[in-house]
């Protein structure tokens, strides 16, 4: 279980970082999405992994429950990353339509190089 979750976070992060370093808008957006999935799973695991436990105490004195706080954090993080991805897609699309190119780097203008 721990190995599965840890390797899932690792693989998602590696894939996300690789895609983030590409030069085109679309892979970068996918990379950001993969990274946010990775961080969501990671946050979930930060409250320890517990299976089939309720997030609140069912009876007083029954001490086994799963930590509810990371679940609330993950929910917030999911909402924010979803909204941010939407904004990123719109800005990426806008930049592509303005520049006729989806390269993410900026070439130097003549004034910058002194040519």
């Amino acid at each position, binding site marked *: 279980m721990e190995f599965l979750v840890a390797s899932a976070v690792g693989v998602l992060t590696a894939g*996300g970082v690789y895609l*983030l370093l590409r030069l085109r*808008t679309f892979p*970068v957006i996918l990379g*950001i999405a993969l*990274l*946010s999935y*990775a*961080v969501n799973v*990671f*946050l979930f*695991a*930060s*409250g*320890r992994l517990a299976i089939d436990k309720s997030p609140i105490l069912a009876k007083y004195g029954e001490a086994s429950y799963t930590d509810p*706080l*990371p679940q609330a*954090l993950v929910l*917030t*993080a999911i909402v*924010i*990353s979803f*909204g*941010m991805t939407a*904004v*990123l897609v719109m*800005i*990426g699309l*806008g*930049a592509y339509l*303005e*520049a006729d190119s989806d390269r*993410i*780097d*900026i070439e130097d203008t003549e*004034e*910058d190089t*002194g040519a």
Partner: protein
Amino acid sequence: MMHWIVLPIVLPAMVAPLIGFVMRNDITMARITSLVSTALLLCIAIGLTAMAAQGETLTYRLGDWPAPFGIVMVLDRLSALMVLLTASLALIVLIHAIATGWDARGRHFHVLFQFQLMGICGAFLTGDVFNLFVFFEVLLIASYGLMIHAGGRARMRAGLQYVVMNLAGSTLFLFALGTLYASTGTLNIADLAAKIPTIPPDDAALVRVAAMLLMIVFAVKAAVFPVQFWLPATYSNAPAPVAALFAIMTKVGAYAILRVHTLAFGPGVPGTEGMAGTWLFPAAIVTIAIGAFGVIGARRLMPLIAFSVVGSMGTLLAAVAVFSPTATTAALYYMVHSTFAAACLFLIADLVVTRRQSDTLDPIPATVQNGLFAALFFAAAIGMAGMPPLSGFLGKLLVLDALRAPGMIGWAWTAILLGSLLTIVGFARAGSNLFWKSTTLSEPALDPGEQRGDAARSRTATAAQLAPAMAALAVLAGLAAFAGPAAAYFEDTSTQLFDRSGYVAAVLGTGEED
């Protein structure tokens, strides 16, 4: 419980949707509402500063949940100072944006502006690290909209880079928070400050990882080497009033480093003591160098100012990296100064570039009011470079004085003094090209095609367009004239910041008071 503390967040949060939904097509109403709201925010900020100046750390419990379980807003001298700085800068920038018509060049300027203020004030007032993340996202998503306001090819592409950079930073922030929660079981800053010092150094490896991840995240916001590269492209392509407002955004990063790395990971914590400063200090020195060389190498006005902002952030963070009350006093003084100096330069550059129709640093025939613009630029450049009589000189003097520890003095003094020299040279060259050599060139023969450009060249600046830049200069002069009282206030501020037990007691509420 006092409700004033939450008002700097609630007020813009209510006004922004009001402008967005009710005054979508009425720019006049939107302008008036936005101005009134920002002026009110300034009044609230002054009130809060007066309250905080009495020396007590005040808290506001949202939903009345007690501190480590619910979210708290914390008002101490430092947060009050930052909110006041934000509100006064916002009013100056807003008047400039309205007077020059920048706000009408795209849609929803005022909505985004108010949401931006909400995020910035929230980041300064919150007492919870996860809440800090949420407010970072609020201010960032508003800044994405402001950054690409009025559109254009270069601006959209620079905006895309800015967004990607900050989204990657946000992901890192979440990883840091997860690590911190896994190792301490809390995200409340006061609770962290109470718990982390009790962790023995041998068990603090995860806490150290979290501390450094947080440091990287805040360094991205504060534009410190090696993550400073987004700043020049962003600031030089953003609309000028937005770039002026962004002068406070880098300070949000510096504030977060001061707050979190002093209270939670700061001096006296066995697991993490001295770690932040060890890494931050060399990074800040390199940042000063990058800023100085950038100013020398820039061939356009906006990147030149953006690089001078990078250099000032380096100077500021070199003082922050000492993590002692004396150095923090110097850092706070320099922080207030550099915010207004950068904003002032961007506002003046906007007036100049609008008339020259290009921000290249080549001499072209002088535009209207050449002497006035030259004088304003000269004054603002003096402030930024750190020459007397404006507050930049005193600020750098305080920073140099704070960095006298052996092992630090050599690097810090060399970098700051040489950096200032290069900045002066860069600004002098820019100023003489823009304003001085221009006067020796004769007017070009008028082509019919140049008629439109000629109208822009000869449009005199109105009093309302000049007032914001002059107000920012007046703040710099005031900060220099009243340096004694200001420094005394900043000294109280940093003493309070380093009083960890006082903060913890006030927030976690050992004694109940309503």
